[in-house]
């Protein structure tokens, strides 16, 4: 392997691990936002539990995705060089960080697919992209996921409140606390078994592409370990801005609703992945929180936040694709271009982190407000109406 290839491979592996970190960081909210919002778990306890379960999950499932993109890219027809993967990852990371800054949950998988598609269009042409799969695997799930999970959570809340209506509020709250913790942990474990695999697949396929690993072999133990650690560390760091939006911004929920939301999320994720209709975890969890909010008598949903989320889901793919395309255009000029993309990405990430410091959201203040704003002065403390 020549020096230039080695540098690109190291960059791809490092970028894949950073993407894995942002994936965990962004998706902590999926499993733990409702538990933190209802007080079923303390914020720090919740992220430690979610991080640990993500790490365990990474080791439990050794099934690596057979393709990087799940059929969205015609990998058999076009050559996917490490530069393309690198550019796609950069697109996904930048989009994950931007949505985190404004506190919007968005699908890391869709960001990754978008970044890769943008890079492939620039690097190999439009024939490298299977647009039918884009509609089937990105657009349709973005619209369907919240409906399925929302209906499941809505019905579960209706059933729960019909049964416990004669109990007093205190008994209900404390009784469902334990159940909510268990269902939240199931979602976290499910996340670890699925999402760490994407990065393992990317690193493994990169190693195979450059001849550093035999074709047809699975991920090496060090790849499993570093991917598991990266997603667990990201989860532990807690994307507090997204946690606030999902836990407090969409609707005010109590422990039975949190239990129903998490149970509906876990059920929908498992049913969809085993019945051949893959849905996005982020969109499933957001939908179930909306459904649980609507299911309670007198409950309401902040539709402006829900609308912003829907727009973010629809924009994720093209936005990450645009960044991936620009990154690929620069990276394919050679090693210098690839290093330039890496430097630009680091600068953009630094700017986003600096902006987040203007109005930091952390474990101490995550439940204090319902909205996430960039500037502290404009932060609203109004609860959901």
């Amino acid at each position: 392997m020549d020096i230039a290839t080695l540098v690109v491979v190291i960059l791809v592996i490092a970028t894949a691990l950073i993407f894995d970190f942002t994936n965990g960081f962004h998706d902590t909210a999926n499993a733990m936002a409702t538990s933190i919002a209802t007080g079923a778990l303390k914020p720090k306890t919740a992220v430690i539990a979610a991080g640990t379960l993500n790490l365990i999950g990474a080791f439990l499932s050794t099934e690596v995705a057979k393709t990087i993109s799940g059929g969205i890219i015609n990998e058999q027809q076009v050559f996917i060089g490490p530069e393309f993967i690198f550019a796609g990852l950069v697109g996904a990371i930048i989009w994950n960080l931007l949505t985190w800054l404004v506190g919007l949950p968005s699908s890391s998988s869709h960001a990754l697919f978008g970044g890769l598609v943008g890079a492939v269009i620039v690097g190999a042409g439009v024939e490298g992209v299977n647009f039918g799969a884009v509609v089937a695997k990105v657009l349709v799930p973005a619209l369907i996921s919240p409906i399925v999970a929302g209906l499941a959570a809505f019905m579960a809340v209706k059933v729960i409140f019909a049964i416990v209506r004669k109990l007093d509020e205190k008994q209900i709250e404390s009784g469902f606390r334990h159940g909510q913790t268990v269902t939240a942990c199931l979602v976290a474990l499910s996340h670890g078994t699925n999402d760490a695999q994407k990065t393992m697949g990317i690193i493994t396929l990169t190693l195979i592409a450059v001849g550093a690993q035999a074709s047809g072999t699975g991920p090496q133990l060090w790849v499993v370990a570093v991917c598991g650690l990266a997603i667990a560390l990201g989860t532990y760091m807690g994307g507090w801005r997204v946690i606030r939006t999902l836990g407090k911004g969409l609707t005010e929920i109590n422990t039975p609703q949190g239990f129903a939301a998490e149970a509906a999320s876990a059920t929908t994720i498992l049913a969809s992945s085993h019945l051949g209709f893959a849905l996005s975890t982020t969109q499933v969890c957001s939908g179930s929180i909306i459904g649980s909010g609507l299911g309670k008598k007198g409950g309401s949903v902040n539709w402006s936040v829900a609308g912003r989320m829907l727009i973010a889901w629809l924009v994720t793919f093209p936005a990450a694709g645009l960044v991936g395309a620009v990154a690929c255009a620069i990276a394919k000029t050679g090693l210098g271009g690839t290093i330039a993309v890496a430097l630009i990405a680091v600068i953009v990430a630094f700017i986003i982190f600096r902006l987040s410091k203007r109005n930091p959201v952390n474990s101490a203040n995550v439940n204090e407000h319902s909205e996430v704003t960039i500037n502290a002065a404009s932060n609203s403390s109004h609860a959901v109406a």
Partner: protein
Amino acid sequence: MIAHEIANFITVLATAVLIASTIGGLYASGLRLWIAGEVDAEGNAHLLHRIGSVVCFAGCVFIVLFALWLMIPIFH
């Protein structure tokens, strides 16, 4: 192809609604029966309520274990 996708969607929707409602109903019933089974002021224990509660919670545990079985590929 489209009919197949619609069938998959309906299956996922029905399964998710059914199982989420079942686990919610079992847990809520377990909780209600457990509280109803507490020893009352006259010192009477309500054993049947407690047994019913344990059965409901056992149903929840079964569903959680089944979910774990589905999640972990080495089990199946």
